[in-house]
């Protein structure tokens, strides 16, 4: 019986590995800010190389009092910004881009303005893949 169990366990492990998400985070950037601007947006790319779905739940950045997933969406010519409190789906095999005028990480409570050339540490927490870290590079505002 024992070899049979072992084989079954192995098969199960193989199956779950095949459907597991495999998350890579890259190309993090943010626009420079000036004093008085309490908030900024960070953009990045999330690649799910696995076949299993995942979900980005939470972002934290030590430089900011708070980092949150936000969406900007146009409704009848009006831009509305809202919290993505349920996180962001990262389907298996897909690339999700957080880009200007759309989903972004809203950074609030900046004690110091973001200066071009700076790198900000960010930790992204996924439901299945756990935490991933990346550096957000600060670029000229006029990018």
């Amino acid at each position: 019986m024992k070899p049979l169990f072992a084989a079954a366990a192995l098969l199960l492990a193989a199956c779950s590995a095949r459907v597991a998400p495999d998350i890579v985070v890259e190309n993090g950037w943010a626009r420079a800010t000036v004093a008085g601007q309490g908030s900024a947006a960070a953009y990045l790319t999330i690649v799910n190389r696995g076949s299993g779905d995942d979900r980005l739940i939470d972002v934290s950045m030590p430089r900011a009092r708070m980092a949150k997933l936000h969406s900007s969406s146009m409704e009848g010519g009006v831009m509305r910004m809202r919290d993505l409190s349920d996180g962001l789906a990262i389907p298996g095999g897909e690339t999700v881009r957080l880009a200007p005028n759309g989903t972004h990480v809203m950074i609030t409570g900046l004690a110091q303005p973001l200066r071009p050339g700076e790198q900000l540490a960010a930790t992204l927490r996924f439901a299945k893949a756990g935490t991933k870290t990346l550096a957000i590079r600060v670029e000229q505002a006029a990018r």
Partner: protein
Amino acid sequence: MTIKRIRLLLWLLVAIAISALAMLLVRQPVEQAATEGTVAIGGPFTLTDGDGRPFSSAKLAGKPFAIFFGFTHCPDVCPTTLARLARLRGQLGGGDDSFAIVFVTVDPERDGPQEVDRYTALFGTPVIGLTGSRAQIEQVKKQFGVFSQKVDQPGADYSVDHTAATFLFGSDGTFVATIAPDEGDDAALAKLKRILG
């Protein structure tokens, strides 16, 4: 095809027609106001510039301008829009003087002259930043058909939902077109060329 199926199909068509009509009705007023040159948009105004001095719209006369309403705490759409206008003005090659870029805050509570001045200096090219009293801002919003509304955010400072279009005016002061944030650069460039004449 059975009668039942045909009836189902017909009902489906009716449902599609109704939803299409509903969408049209919901969207039309905004798009009409935003894209047609004949609607009265703009007009004379007096606000306050980044140095705290009165700024009369007469200063914009004789030159085309692009005017955008936003707020300095806006993390995504406002800097994206102003950065794009700065970039496209550079691409068009007519220099910083070819058309003015004007930023008007819809959040005068937080954006005084100093905030607006520092913010507009971010874009590496001249941008006219304007603020004013609440009454002045409300008046200008009305003139340009701009909507804005404060939105409380859990655990953070308030945000402001606002009309995100950029309004383009020719050198004679007539409203020509708008650029929406979700329009591509090619469309935006074509519209900017129209105000450059």
